[in-house]
């Protein structure tokens, strides 16, 4: 199922943000309990700073500068503190986290993502804490965005969900039909006939003709080369 929205496949920020938005949607649809702790603290810090700025504007407008300048000085100091705290929070505590939640099985997940400049690769880091509080493993998933965005820029949910379900055991347990095992092959259907990868490979090599002989000749020359090397 592809979404109606198209994004530019050359805009790394759009690719990453669309994928970041898809993760909470997917996990919450699997009945994960999302924890909004990080967002709530960030919003509290930010809006408190805004409230102080608003108050400062109000008393400055109503009473003028001279009579309120000590309050304004205090407000500026407090605002800088809150803004600094917000920046520290975003940088050190959130650290790129886009989802925090509990799986139906009881495991706690913390997912953070990043992508390096000019590299269309989605890096997902998942920290798992088991139900009993024992720290689980930290899973790193690195996949190019091409696996779930088509050439036009539509986000395709199924392969994205497979990547997550296969890579993260807690998600795989909640959504077993998306877990791809090693022997799963992608099947292509054209004009009513299903082609397996083996059939496609044979078709491709028969179209090349000489390619079949070349692939047959390679092992022989390889062996010759080995003999030469030994001599």
């Amino acid at each position, binding site marked *: 199922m592809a979404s109606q*929205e198209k994004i530019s496949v050359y805009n790394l*920020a759009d690719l990453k*943000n669309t994928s970041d*938005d898809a993760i909470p949607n997917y996990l919450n649809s699997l009945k994960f309990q999302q924890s*909004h702790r990080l*967002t*709530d603290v*960030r*919003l509290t810090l*930010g*809006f408190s*700073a*805004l409230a102080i*700025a*608003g108050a*400062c*504007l109000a008393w*400055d407008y109503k009473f*003028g*500068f*001279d009579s309120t*300048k000590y309050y*304004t*000085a205090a*407000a*500026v100091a407090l*605002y*800088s503190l809150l*803004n600094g705290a*917000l920046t520290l929070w975003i940088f050190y505590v959130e650290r790129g986290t886009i989802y925090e939640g509990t799986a139906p099985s009881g495991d706690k997940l913390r997912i953070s993502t990043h992508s390096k400049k000019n590299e269309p690769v989605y890096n997902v880091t998942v920290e798992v804490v088991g139900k009993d509080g024992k720290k689980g493993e930290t899973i790193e998933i690195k996949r190019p965005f091409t696996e779930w965005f088509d050439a036009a820029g539509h986000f395709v949910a199924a392969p994205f969900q497979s990547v997550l379900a296969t890579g993260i055991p807690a998600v795989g347990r909640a959504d077993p039909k998306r877990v791809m095992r090693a022997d799963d092959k992608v099947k292509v259907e054209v004009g009513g006939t299903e082609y397996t990868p083996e059939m496609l490979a044979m078709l491709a090599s028969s179209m090349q003709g000489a390619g079949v002989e070349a692939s047959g000749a390679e092992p022989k020359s390889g062996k010759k080369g080995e003999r030469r090397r030994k001599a």
Partner: protein
Amino acid sequence: MLSGLANPRQAAAQLMNFGLIVSTAFMMWKGLSVITDSPSPIVVVLSGSMEPAFQRGDLLFLWNRNILSETSVGEIVVYNVKDKDIPIVHRVVRKFGIGPKAKLLTKGDNNLSDDTELYARGQDYLVRKDIIGSVVGFIPFVGYVTIMLSEHPWLKPVMLGMMGLVVVLQRE
């Protein structure tokens, strides 16, 4: 992008980002105000009365604390005429007495006569309290934007709206 607004927390976060940009600019202005002890630490020259030193549109930086010495003759000061909101940038040409009650007379370099006619009815001299700062630095021509904004007030909401749109639609 815009569909993300369906999620209330995300909408709040976007709103907060925009608000923080505006409020940071405001608080930086207020901070500068508090440090310089001037209600308006940066002013734009509105007239040509101080030519050739300052032209219309120059940006002036003010300092309103007398830490080392009192405001003296020869300093370029900015003052508001009583009950008017227009800052006037002129030079102090006479000083009678010392301390906060000293009487100061100002005159624009490019004017023929001193500012006695500009002062409020019955006011012949300025006192230190009327002055909102002495000029300590300037950048030429940059302030012309402010003059345009005040002469064409419809520009203000247009500019703010454009900035807001850019921030909300970008999530980098």
